[in-house]
Protein backbone atom coordinates (compact mmCIF):
# COMPACT_ATOMS: atom_id res chain seq x y z
CA UNK A 1 0.00 0.00 0.00
CA UNK A 2 2.72 2.42 -0.99
CA UNK A 3 2.87 5.76 -2.69
CA UNK A 4 6.33 5.85 -4.19
CA UNK A 5 7.99 9.24 -4.17
CA UNK A 6 9.01 8.92 -7.82
CA UNK A 7 5.75 7.35 -9.00
CA UNK A 8 6.02 5.58 -12.35
CA UNK A 9 9.74 6.34 -12.59
CA UNK A 10 10.18 3.64 -9.95
CA UNK A 11 8.35 1.18 -12.25
CA UNK A 12 10.02 2.14 -15.52
CA UNK A 13 13.50 3.67 -15.26
CA UNK A 14 14.57 3.42 -11.62
CA UNK A 15 13.39 0.19 -9.99
CA UNK A 16 15.68 0.85 -7.03
CA UNK A 17 13.83 4.04 -6.19
CA UNK A 18 11.40 2.42 -3.77
CA UNK A 19 11.39 5.30 -1.29
CA UNK A 20 7.95 6.63 -0.43
CA UNK A 21 6.31 10.03 -0.35
CA UNK A 22 5.94 9.55 3.40
CA UNK A 23 9.73 9.34 3.86
CA UNK A 24 10.05 12.59 1.87
CA UNK A 25 7.36 14.22 4.02
CA UNK A 26 9.21 13.23 7.21
CA UNK A 27 12.49 14.52 5.75
CA UNK A 28 10.91 17.85 4.81
CA UNK A 29 9.46 18.23 8.29
CA UNK A 30 12.82 17.50 9.88
CA UNK A 31 14.61 20.00 7.62
CA UNK A 32 11.98 22.64 8.42
CA UNK A 33 12.72 22.11 12.12
CA UNK A 34 16.49 22.36 11.58
CA UNK A 35 16.35 25.45 9.36
CA UNK A 36 13.81 27.38 11.43
CA UNK A 37 15.63 26.68 14.71
CA UNK A 38 18.93 27.75 13.19
CA UNK A 39 17.50 30.88 11.55
CA UNK A 40 15.75 31.99 14.74
CA UNK A 41 19.00 31.66 16.65
CA UNK A 42 21.09 33.52 14.06
CA UNK A 43 18.54 36.33 13.67
CA UNK A 44 18.12 36.74 17.38
CA UNK A 45 21.88 37.16 17.82
CA UNK A 46 21.97 39.56 14.84
CA UNK A 47 19.53 41.94 16.55
CA UNK A 48 16.47 41.08 14.46
CA UNK A 49 14.03 40.10 17.21
CA UNK A 50 10.81 40.29 15.18
CA UNK A 51 11.96 37.81 12.56
CA UNK A 52 13.36 35.49 15.24
CA UNK A 53 10.18 35.62 17.34
CA UNK A 54 7.99 35.06 14.30
CA UNK A 55 9.98 31.97 13.30
CA UNK A 56 9.92 30.59 16.84
CA UNK A 57 6.17 31.15 17.08
CA UNK A 58 5.68 29.32 13.77
CA UNK A 59 8.12 26.44 14.32
CA UNK A 60 5.39 23.84 14.84
CA UNK A 61 3.32 25.26 11.97
CA UNK A 62 6.28 25.07 9.63
CA UNK A 63 7.09 21.50 10.70
CA UNK A 64 3.47 20.51 10.10
CA UNK A 65 3.54 22.30 6.73
CA UNK A 66 6.67 20.32 5.82
CA UNK A 67 5.01 17.07 6.83
CA UNK A 68 1.74 17.80 5.00
CA UNK A 69 2.78 19.86 1.96
CA UNK A 70 2.20 17.00 -0.53
CA UNK A 71 -0.82 15.42 1.16
CA UNK A 72 -3.27 16.52 -1.55
CA UNK A 73 -1.40 14.71 -4.34
CA UNK A 74 -2.76 11.39 -5.49
CA UNK A 75 -0.55 8.39 -6.25
CA UNK A 76 1.71 9.13 -9.27
CA UNK A 77 1.22 12.85 -8.49
CA UNK A 78 0.21 14.90 -11.57
CA UNK A 79 -0.71 11.75 -13.54
CA UNK A 80 -3.60 11.14 -11.15
CA UNK A 81 -4.04 14.76 -9.99
CA UNK A 82 -5.22 15.82 -13.44
CA UNK A 83 -8.08 13.34 -13.97
CA UNK A 84 -8.99 13.67 -10.28
CA UNK A 85 -9.24 17.45 -10.62
CA UNK A 86 -11.66 16.94 -13.53
CA UNK A 87 -13.79 14.41 -11.69
CA UNK A 88 -13.65 15.86 -8.16
CA UNK A 89 -13.78 19.46 -9.33
CA UNK A 90 -10.90 20.31 -6.98
CA UNK A 91 -7.18 20.88 -7.44
CA UNK A 92 -4.66 18.88 -5.43
CA UNK A 93 -4.02 22.04 -3.40
CA UNK A 94 -7.69 22.26 -2.47
CA UNK A 95 -7.84 18.54 -1.65
CA UNK A 96 -4.73 18.95 0.53
CA UNK A 97 -6.18 21.91 2.43
CA UNK A 98 -9.38 19.94 3.11
CA UNK A 99 -7.47 16.88 4.32
CA UNK A 100 -5.41 19.02 6.68
CA UNK A 101 -8.50 20.81 8.00
CA UNK A 102 -10.59 17.66 8.48
CA UNK A 103 -8.05 14.97 9.41
CA UNK A 104 -5.35 16.79 11.34
CA UNK A 105 -7.32 18.95 13.80
CA UNK A 106 -5.74 17.06 16.68
CA UNK A 107 -2.42 18.78 15.87
CA UNK A 108 -3.96 21.87 17.48
CA UNK A 109 -3.31 20.11 20.81
CA UNK A 110 0.40 20.05 19.95
CA UNK A 111 1.04 23.73 19.34
CA UNK A 112 -0.01 23.78 15.69
CA UNK A 113 -2.50 26.27 14.23
CA UNK A 114 -4.17 24.49 11.34
CA UNK A 115 -5.25 27.67 9.53
CA UNK A 116 -1.64 28.92 9.59
CA UNK A 117 -0.37 25.61 8.21
CA UNK A 118 -2.83 25.85 5.32
CA UNK A 119 -1.92 29.49 4.66
CA UNK A 120 1.80 28.70 4.71
CA UNK A 121 1.37 25.84 2.22
CA UNK A 122 -0.92 27.82 -0.09
CA UNK A 123 1.28 30.93 -0.04
CA UNK A 124 -1.42 33.00 1.60
CA UNK A 125 0.33 33.75 4.90
CA UNK A 126 0.85 37.44 5.69
CA UNK A 127 4.58 36.76 5.94
CA UNK A 128 5.67 35.29 2.57
CA UNK A 129 9.10 34.15 3.82
CA UNK A 130 7.32 31.46 5.87
CA UNK A 131 5.85 30.07 2.65
CA UNK A 132 9.28 30.28 0.97
CA UNK A 133 10.70 27.97 3.65
CA UNK A 134 8.31 25.26 2.38
CA UNK A 135 7.87 26.35 -1.25
CA UNK A 136 10.44 28.73 -2.67
CA UNK A 137 13.68 28.75 -4.65
CA UNK A 138 15.71 27.24 -1.78
CA UNK A 139 12.93 25.54 0.19
CA UNK A 140 13.29 22.55 2.49
CA UNK A 141 11.11 20.50 0.12
CA UNK A 142 13.75 20.69 -2.63
CA UNK A 143 16.61 20.24 -0.16
CA UNK A 144 15.02 16.95 0.84
CA UNK A 145 13.78 15.57 -2.46
CA UNK A 146 16.87 16.42 -4.54
CA UNK A 147 19.23 14.60 -2.19
CA UNK A 148 16.77 11.80 -1.35
CA UNK A 149 15.74 11.12 -4.96
CA UNK A 150 19.27 11.35 -6.37
CA UNK A 151 20.48 8.89 -3.73
CA UNK A 152 17.72 6.39 -4.58
CA UNK A 153 18.18 6.57 -8.36
CA UNK A 154 21.91 6.11 -7.99
CA UNK A 155 23.09 9.57 -9.01
CA UNK A 156 25.63 10.52 -6.39
CA UNK A 157 24.83 14.22 -6.37
CA UNK A 158 25.70 15.89 -3.13
CA UNK A 159 26.38 19.11 -1.27
CA UNK A 160 26.95 19.77 2.41
CA UNK A 161 23.36 20.28 3.50
CA UNK A 162 24.09 21.06 7.16
CA UNK A 163 26.67 23.65 6.23
CA UNK A 164 24.37 25.17 3.58
CA UNK A 165 21.65 25.80 6.19
CA UNK A 166 24.06 28.14 7.97
CA UNK A 167 24.06 30.30 4.81
CA UNK A 168 20.30 31.01 5.01
CA UNK A 169 18.90 34.36 6.15
CA UNK A 170 15.59 36.16 6.26
CA UNK A 171 16.32 39.29 4.23
CA UNK A 172 14.55 42.59 4.70
CA UNK A 173 13.51 45.05 7.35
CA UNK A 174 12.83 43.52 10.77
CA UNK A 175 9.86 45.88 11.15
CA UNK A 176 8.28 44.91 7.80
CA UNK A 177 7.89 41.13 7.89
CA UNK A 178 5.29 41.22 5.10
CA UNK A 179 7.99 42.09 2.55
CA UNK A 180 10.83 39.93 3.86
CA UNK A 181 12.25 37.09 1.77
CA UNK A 182 14.19 33.92 2.41
CA UNK A 183 17.69 34.29 1.00
CA UNK A 184 21.37 33.63 1.49
CA UNK A 185 24.36 35.41 2.99
CA UNK A 186 26.71 37.07 0.53
CA UNK A 187 29.61 34.67 0.93
CA UNK A 188 31.59 32.56 -1.50
CA UNK A 189 30.38 29.45 0.32
CA UNK A 190 26.71 30.41 0.01
CA UNK A 191 26.97 31.35 -3.67
CA UNK A 192 29.00 28.28 -4.61
CA UNK A 193 26.73 25.88 -2.71
CA UNK A 194 23.65 27.55 -4.20
CA UNK A 195 25.15 27.06 -7.68
CA UNK A 196 25.70 23.37 -6.94
CA UNK A 197 22.15 23.13 -5.56
CA UNK A 198 20.67 24.66 -8.74
CA UNK A 199 22.78 22.46 -11.00
CA UNK A 200 21.63 19.36 -9.10
CA UNK A 201 18.04 20.61 -9.48
CA UNK A 202 18.54 20.99 -13.23
CA UNK A 203 20.32 17.65 -13.50
CA UNK A 204 17.52 15.88 -11.66
CA UNK A 205 14.88 17.37 -13.98
CA UNK A 206 16.85 16.50 -17.12
CA UNK A 207 17.95 13.02 -16.06
CA UNK A 208 15.22 11.82 -13.70
CA UNK A 209 11.98 13.82 -13.43
CA UNK A 210 11.62 14.30 -17.20
CA UNK A 211 13.37 11.11 -18.32
CA UNK A 212 11.69 10.01 -21.53
CA UNK A 213 10.45 6.46 -20.92
CA UNK A 214 8.94 7.35 -17.55
CA UNK A 215 7.37 10.45 -19.05
CA UNK A 216 5.80 8.34 -21.81
CA UNK A 217 4.50 5.88 -19.21
CA UNK A 218 3.01 8.79 -17.24
CA UNK A 219 1.19 10.16 -20.27
CA UNK A 220 -0.05 6.66 -21.18
CA UNK A 221 -1.44 6.17 -17.67
CA UNK A 222 -3.05 9.62 -17.68
CA UNK A 223 -4.83 8.81 -20.97
CA UNK A 224 -5.70 5.33 -19.68
CA UNK A 225 -7.33 6.73 -16.53
CA UNK A 226 -9.39 9.23 -18.55
CA UNK A 227 -10.45 6.56 -21.07
CA UNK A 228 -11.13 4.04 -18.28
CA UNK A 229 -13.29 6.44 -16.27
CA UNK A 230 -15.49 7.00 -19.33
CA UNK A 231 -16.05 3.26 -19.73
CA UNK A 232 -16.18 1.99 -16.18
CA UNK A 233 -18.28 3.52 -13.40
CA UNK A 234 -16.37 1.68 -10.65
CA UNK A 235 -13.10 3.19 -11.81
CA UNK A 236 -14.72 6.60 -12.14
CA UNK A 237 -15.96 6.39 -8.54
CA UNK A 238 -12.37 5.93 -7.33
CA UNK A 239 -11.51 9.38 -8.67
CA UNK A 240 -14.80 11.20 -8.23
CA UNK A 241 -15.68 10.19 -4.64
CA UNK A 242 -13.32 11.95 -2.31
CA UNK A 243 -13.38 9.39 0.50
CA UNK A 244 -12.33 6.69 -1.97
CA UNK A 245 -9.86 8.96 -3.73
CA UNK A 246 -8.03 9.69 -0.47
CA UNK A 247 -7.36 5.96 0.01
CA UNK A 248 -5.71 5.31 -3.37
CA UNK A 249 -2.15 4.00 -3.60
CA UNK A 250 0.11 3.13 -6.54
CA UNK A 251 -0.74 -0.52 -7.18
CA UNK A 252 -4.44 0.01 -6.48
CA UNK A 253 -4.55 2.55 -9.34
CA UNK A 254 -2.62 0.34 -11.76
CA UNK A 255 -4.71 -2.74 -10.90
CA UNK A 256 -8.01 -0.90 -11.27
CA UNK A 257 -7.10 0.81 -14.55
CA UNK A 258 -5.67 -2.45 -15.91
CA UNK A 259 -9.04 -4.16 -15.48
CA UNK A 260 -10.80 -1.90 -17.99
CA UNK A 261 -10.78 -3.38 -21.47
CA UNK A 262 -9.25 -1.61 -24.40
CA UNK A 263 -6.60 1.11 -24.13
CA UNK A 264 -6.51 1.18 -20.28
CA UNK A 265 -5.74 -2.54 -20.00
CA UNK A 266 -3.24 -2.33 -22.87
CA UNK A 267 -1.50 0.74 -21.39
CA UNK A 268 -1.05 -0.79 -17.93
CA UNK A 269 0.23 -4.03 -19.42
CA UNK A 270 2.74 -2.08 -21.51
CA UNK A 271 3.87 -0.02 -18.50
CA UNK A 272 4.39 -3.18 -16.44
CA UNK A 273 6.25 -5.01 -19.22
CA UNK A 274 8.31 -2.05 -20.44
CA UNK A 275 6.73 -2.08 -23.89
CA UNK A 276 5.79 1.58 -24.06
CA UNK A 277 4.63 3.94 -26.79
CA UNK A 278 7.54 5.20 -28.84
CA UNK A 279 8.88 8.74 -29.05
CA UNK A 280 8.04 9.90 -32.58
CA UNK A 281 8.53 13.65 -32.57
CA UNK A 282 10.13 16.33 -30.40
CA UNK A 283 10.83 20.01 -30.91
CA UNK A 284 11.92 22.95 -28.78
CA UNK A 285 9.21 25.55 -29.42
CA UNK A 286 11.55 28.50 -28.83
CA UNK A 287 13.71 27.37 -31.76
CA UNK A 288 11.00 26.41 -34.24
CA UNK A 289 9.07 29.70 -34.24
CA UNK A 290 5.70 28.26 -35.17
CA UNK A 291 2.64 30.44 -35.57
CA UNK A 292 0.17 29.92 -32.77
CA UNK A 293 -3.50 30.52 -32.33
CA UNK A 294 -4.34 32.66 -29.32
CA UNK A 295 -5.91 29.78 -27.39
CA UNK A 296 -2.69 27.78 -27.54
CA UNK A 297 -0.62 30.62 -26.09
CA UNK A 298 -3.22 31.47 -23.44
CA UNK A 299 -3.27 27.85 -22.31
CA UNK A 300 0.53 27.70 -22.00
CA UNK A 301 1.05 31.18 -20.59
CA UNK A 302 1.14 30.27 -16.91
CA UNK A 303 2.08 26.67 -17.61
CA UNK A 304 -0.49 25.56 -15.07
CA UNK A 305 -0.31 21.74 -14.98
CA UNK A 306 -4.03 21.19 -15.50
CA UNK A 307 -4.33 23.72 -18.33
CA UNK A 308 -1.31 22.24 -20.08
CA UNK A 309 -2.76 18.73 -19.66
CA UNK A 310 -6.06 19.95 -21.17
CA UNK A 311 -4.16 21.29 -24.17
CA UNK A 312 -2.10 18.15 -24.71
CA UNK A 313 -5.19 15.91 -24.41
CA UNK A 314 -7.09 18.03 -26.91
CA UNK A 315 -4.13 18.10 -29.29
CA UNK A 316 -3.83 14.31 -28.98
CA UNK A 317 -7.49 13.85 -29.91
CA UNK A 318 -7.22 16.20 -32.88
CA UNK A 319 -4.04 14.50 -34.11
CA UNK A 320 -5.54 11.01 -33.88
CA UNK A 321 -8.48 12.23 -35.95
CA UNK A 322 -6.25 13.94 -38.52
CA UNK A 323 -4.01 10.91 -38.90
CA UNK A 324 -6.89 8.45 -38.96
CA UNK A 325 -5.86 6.67 -35.75
CA UNK A 326 -7.90 5.23 -32.90
CA UNK A 327 -8.12 7.36 -29.75
CA UNK A 328 -4.89 7.38 -27.70
CA UNK A 329 -2.74 5.80 -30.43
CA UNK A 330 -0.88 9.08 -30.64
CA UNK A 331 -0.22 11.07 -27.47
CA UNK A 332 0.90 14.70 -27.55
CA UNK A 333 2.94 16.01 -24.64
CA UNK A 334 4.17 19.45 -23.59
CA UNK A 335 7.19 19.45 -21.29
CA UNK A 336 8.75 22.49 -19.74
CA UNK A 337 12.39 22.64 -18.80
CA UNK A 338 12.31 25.43 -16.25
CA UNK A 339 14.65 28.23 -15.28
CA UNK A 340 15.43 28.22 -11.58
CA UNK A 341 13.49 30.79 -9.59
CA UNK A 342 15.56 33.79 -8.46
CA UNK A 343 17.55 33.11 -5.31
CA UNK A 344 18.00 36.22 -3.17
CA UNK A 345 21.42 37.06 -1.80
CA UNK A 346 21.93 39.68 0.88
CA UNK A 347 22.95 42.77 -1.05
CA UNK A 348 24.99 45.83 -0.33
CA UNK A 349 23.58 48.36 -2.76
CA UNK A 350 20.34 50.35 -2.88
CA UNK A 351 19.88 50.39 0.89
CA UNK A 352 20.81 46.76 1.28
CA UNK A 353 18.35 45.52 -1.33
CA UNK A 354 19.05 41.88 -2.20
CA UNK A 355 20.94 40.64 -5.22
CA UNK A 356 19.98 37.64 -7.30
CA UNK A 357 22.10 34.55 -7.77
CA UNK A 358 21.54 34.48 -11.54
CA UNK A 359 23.02 38.00 -11.76
CA UNK A 360 26.09 36.94 -9.83
CA UNK A 361 26.61 33.58 -11.52
CA UNK A 362 27.12 33.09 -15.24
CA UNK A 363 26.44 29.36 -14.80
CA UNK A 364 22.98 29.95 -13.34
CA UNK A 365 22.25 32.97 -15.55
CA UNK A 366 22.82 30.82 -18.64
CA UNK A 367 20.05 28.34 -17.80
CA UNK A 368 17.15 28.95 -20.18
CA UNK A 369 13.56 27.91 -19.98
CA UNK A 370 12.36 25.70 -22.83
CA UNK A 371 9.04 24.20 -23.81
CA UNK A 372 9.16 20.96 -25.77
CA UNK A 373 6.33 19.66 -27.90
CA UNK A 374 6.47 15.88 -28.22
CA UNK A 375 4.44 13.05 -29.67
CA UNK A 376 4.48 9.39 -28.71
CA UNK A 377 2.98 6.68 -30.90
CA UNK A 378 1.56 3.29 -30.08
CA UNK A 379 3.87 0.42 -31.13
CA UNK A 380 1.06 -1.34 -33.01
CA UNK A 381 -0.16 1.27 -35.47
CA UNK A 382 -2.26 0.30 -38.52
CA UNK A 383 -0.01 2.33 -40.84
CA UNK A 384 3.32 4.08 -40.78
CA UNK A 385 3.43 7.71 -39.72
CA UNK A 386 6.46 9.86 -40.45
CA UNK A 387 7.90 12.64 -38.32
CA UNK A 388 7.07 15.08 -41.15
CA UNK A 389 3.42 14.01 -41.10
CA UNK A 390 3.24 14.59 -37.36
CA UNK A 391 4.90 18.00 -37.59
CA UNK A 392 2.70 19.10 -40.51
CA UNK A 393 -0.51 18.28 -38.64
CA UNK A 394 0.69 19.58 -35.27
CA UNK A 395 1.68 22.87 -36.89
CA UNK A 396 -1.77 23.17 -38.40
CA UNK A 397 -3.46 22.44 -35.07
CA UNK A 398 -1.33 24.99 -33.21
CA UNK A 399 -2.09 27.66 -35.80
CA UNK A 400 -5.82 27.11 -35.96
CA UNK A 401 -6.64 27.11 -32.24
CA UNK A 402 -7.83 30.64 -31.80
Amino acid sequence: MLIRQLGLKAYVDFPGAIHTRFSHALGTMQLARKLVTLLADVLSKAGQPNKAANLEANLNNLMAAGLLHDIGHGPFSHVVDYPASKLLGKTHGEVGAEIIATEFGRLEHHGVTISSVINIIKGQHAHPFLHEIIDGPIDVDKLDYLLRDSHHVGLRYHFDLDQFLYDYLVLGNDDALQSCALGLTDTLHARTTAEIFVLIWKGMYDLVYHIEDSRIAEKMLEHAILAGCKKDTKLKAMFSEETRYRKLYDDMVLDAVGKVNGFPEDAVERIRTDNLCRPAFSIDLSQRRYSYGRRVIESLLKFDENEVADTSIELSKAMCKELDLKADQLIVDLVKSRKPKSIHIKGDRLQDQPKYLEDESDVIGAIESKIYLKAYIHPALPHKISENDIEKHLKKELETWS
Partner: protein
Amino acid sequence: MVIEVGEQTDLLLLLVTIRELGEISGRTRLQKTVYLLRERFGVPFKLKFKPYYYGPYSDELSDMVENLVALGLVEEHRRYLADGVVEYSYKLTDAGSGFLGSQVSVEAIRKPPLANLVKGLRELRELPTNVLVATAKSILTGIVLQST
Protein backbone atom coordinates in the same frame (compact mmCIF):
# COMPACT_ATOMS: atom_id res chain seq x y z
CA MET B 1 -9.60 36.85 -35.15
CA VAL B 2 -8.88 40.50 -34.43
CA ILE B 3 -9.65 41.47 -30.87
CA GLU B 4 -12.52 43.78 -30.00
CA VAL B 5 -12.26 46.52 -27.41
CA GLY B 6 -13.05 45.04 -23.99
CA GLU B 7 -11.65 41.59 -24.73
CA GLN B 8 -8.09 42.29 -23.66
CA THR B 9 -6.35 39.56 -21.74
CA ASP B 10 -3.14 39.73 -19.73
CA LEU B 11 -1.35 38.13 -22.68
CA LEU B 12 -2.36 40.81 -25.16
CA LEU B 13 -1.92 43.68 -22.68
CA LEU B 14 1.60 42.50 -21.89
CA LEU B 15 2.55 42.08 -25.54
CA VAL B 16 1.19 45.53 -26.40
CA THR B 17 3.21 46.96 -23.48
CA ILE B 18 6.44 45.39 -24.75
CA ARG B 19 5.72 46.39 -28.36
CA GLU B 20 4.96 50.00 -27.48
CA LEU B 21 8.19 50.27 -25.46
CA GLY B 22 10.24 48.68 -28.27
CA GLU B 23 12.45 47.11 -25.63
CA ILE B 24 12.12 47.09 -21.86
CA SER B 25 15.31 46.89 -19.81
CA GLY B 26 15.31 45.36 -16.37
CA ARG B 27 12.99 42.83 -14.75
CA THR B 28 12.23 45.25 -11.92
CA ARG B 29 11.27 47.94 -14.43
CA LEU B 30 8.93 45.55 -16.25
CA GLN B 31 7.23 44.52 -13.00
CA LYS B 32 6.69 48.09 -11.80
CA THR B 33 5.58 49.34 -15.21
CA VAL B 34 2.84 46.72 -15.40
CA TYR B 35 1.78 47.40 -11.80
CA LEU B 36 1.58 51.15 -12.36
CA LEU B 37 -0.27 50.74 -15.66
CA ARG B 38 -2.95 48.94 -13.72
CA GLU B 39 -3.06 51.06 -10.57
CA ARG B 40 -2.54 54.51 -12.06
CA PHE B 41 -3.87 54.22 -15.58
CA GLY B 42 -6.64 51.64 -15.16
CA VAL B 43 -5.19 49.10 -17.59
CA PRO B 44 -7.09 45.90 -16.71
CA PHE B 45 -4.23 43.48 -15.96
CA LYS B 46 -5.60 40.69 -13.77
CA LEU B 47 -2.20 39.60 -12.43
CA LYS B 48 -1.74 39.09 -8.70
CA PHE B 49 0.96 41.24 -7.07
CA LYS B 50 2.42 40.78 -3.60
CA PRO B 51 4.50 43.15 -1.48
CA TYR B 52 8.19 42.48 -1.87
CA TYR B 53 11.60 44.02 -1.43
CA TYR B 54 11.46 46.19 -4.51
CA GLY B 55 7.77 46.88 -4.02
CA PRO B 56 4.94 44.97 -5.70
CA TYR B 57 6.00 41.80 -7.46
CA SER B 58 4.03 39.29 -9.50
CA ASP B 59 5.17 35.67 -9.85
CA GLU B 60 2.53 35.27 -12.55
CA LEU B 61 4.05 38.07 -14.63
CA SER B 62 7.51 36.58 -14.22
CA ASP B 63 6.19 33.15 -15.34
CA MET B 64 4.33 34.70 -18.29
CA VAL B 65 7.46 36.41 -19.58
CA GLU B 66 9.50 33.22 -19.12
CA ASN B 67 6.92 31.23 -21.10
CA LEU B 68 6.63 33.82 -23.86
CA VAL B 69 10.42 33.59 -24.24
CA ALA B 70 10.23 29.77 -24.30
CA LEU B 71 7.51 29.96 -26.99
CA GLY B 72 9.67 32.24 -29.12
CA LEU B 73 7.34 35.27 -28.96
CA VAL B 74 9.62 37.44 -26.79
CA GLU B 75 13.42 37.68 -26.82
CA GLU B 76 15.39 37.96 -23.59
CA HIS B 77 18.90 39.44 -23.54
CA ARG B 78 21.26 39.35 -20.59
CA ARG B 79 23.92 42.04 -20.55
CA TYR B 80 26.48 43.43 -18.14
CA LEU B 81 26.26 47.09 -17.22
CA ALA B 82 29.35 49.17 -16.47
CA ASP B 83 29.35 48.40 -12.73
CA GLY B 84 29.12 44.64 -13.30
CA VAL B 85 25.39 44.54 -12.65
CA VAL B 86 23.46 42.22 -14.95
CA GLU B 87 20.40 43.56 -16.73
CA TYR B 88 17.77 41.58 -18.63
CA SER B 89 15.92 43.20 -21.50
CA TYR B 90 12.87 42.06 -23.43
CA LYS B 91 11.48 42.74 -26.89
CA LEU B 92 9.05 41.06 -29.24
CA THR B 93 10.37 38.63 -31.83
CA ASP B 94 9.02 38.74 -35.39
CA ALA B 95 6.74 35.85 -34.41
CA GLY B 96 5.53 37.86 -31.38
CA SER B 97 4.88 40.97 -33.51
CA GLY B 98 3.09 38.88 -36.12
CA PHE B 99 0.89 37.25 -33.51
CA LEU B 100 0.03 40.55 -31.85
CA GLY B 101 -0.72 42.17 -35.21
CA SER B 102 -3.19 39.40 -35.94
CA GLN B 103 -4.95 39.88 -32.59
CA VAL B 104 -5.13 43.62 -31.90
CA SER B 105 -6.52 46.03 -34.47
CA VAL B 106 -5.23 49.56 -35.02
CA GLU B 107 -8.67 50.87 -33.92
CA ALA B 108 -8.44 49.02 -30.61
CA ILE B 109 -5.22 50.87 -29.74
CA ARG B 110 -7.05 54.21 -30.09
CA LYS B 111 -9.77 53.30 -27.59
CA PRO B 112 -9.64 52.57 -23.85
CA PRO B 113 -8.19 50.60 -22.22
CA LEU B 114 -5.36 50.22 -24.76
CA ALA B 115 -5.32 54.00 -25.28
CA ASN B 116 -4.78 54.34 -21.50
CA LEU B 117 -1.96 51.86 -21.74
CA VAL B 118 -0.22 53.84 -24.48
CA LYS B 119 -0.74 57.11 -22.58
CA GLY B 120 0.57 55.53 -19.35
CA LEU B 121 3.66 54.22 -21.07
CA ARG B 122 4.44 57.68 -22.45
CA GLU B 123 4.66 58.93 -18.86
CA LEU B 124 6.27 55.90 -17.27
CA ARG B 125 9.04 55.43 -19.84
CA GLU B 126 10.46 58.85 -18.86
CA LEU B 127 10.83 57.90 -15.19
CA PRO B 128 14.01 56.33 -13.82
CA THR B 129 13.60 52.84 -12.34
CA ASN B 130 14.10 54.00 -8.74
CA VAL B 131 11.20 56.45 -9.14
CA LEU B 132 9.01 53.67 -10.59
CA VAL B 133 9.91 51.49 -7.61
CA ALA B 134 9.19 54.24 -5.07
CA THR B 135 5.87 55.12 -6.74
CA ALA B 136 4.76 51.48 -6.95
CA LYS B 137 5.75 50.91 -3.30
CA SER B 138 3.82 53.94 -2.09
CA ILE B 139 0.68 52.89 -3.99
CA LEU B 140 0.92 49.35 -2.62
CA THR B 141 1.48 50.62 0.92
CA GLY B 142 -1.68 52.73 0.58
CA ILE B 143 -3.65 49.71 -0.61
CA VAL B 144 -2.34 47.52 2.23
CA LEU B 145 -3.12 50.23 4.80
CA GLN B 146 -6.63 50.67 3.41
CA SER B 147 -7.31 46.95 3.56
CA THR B 148 -6.18 46.65 7.17
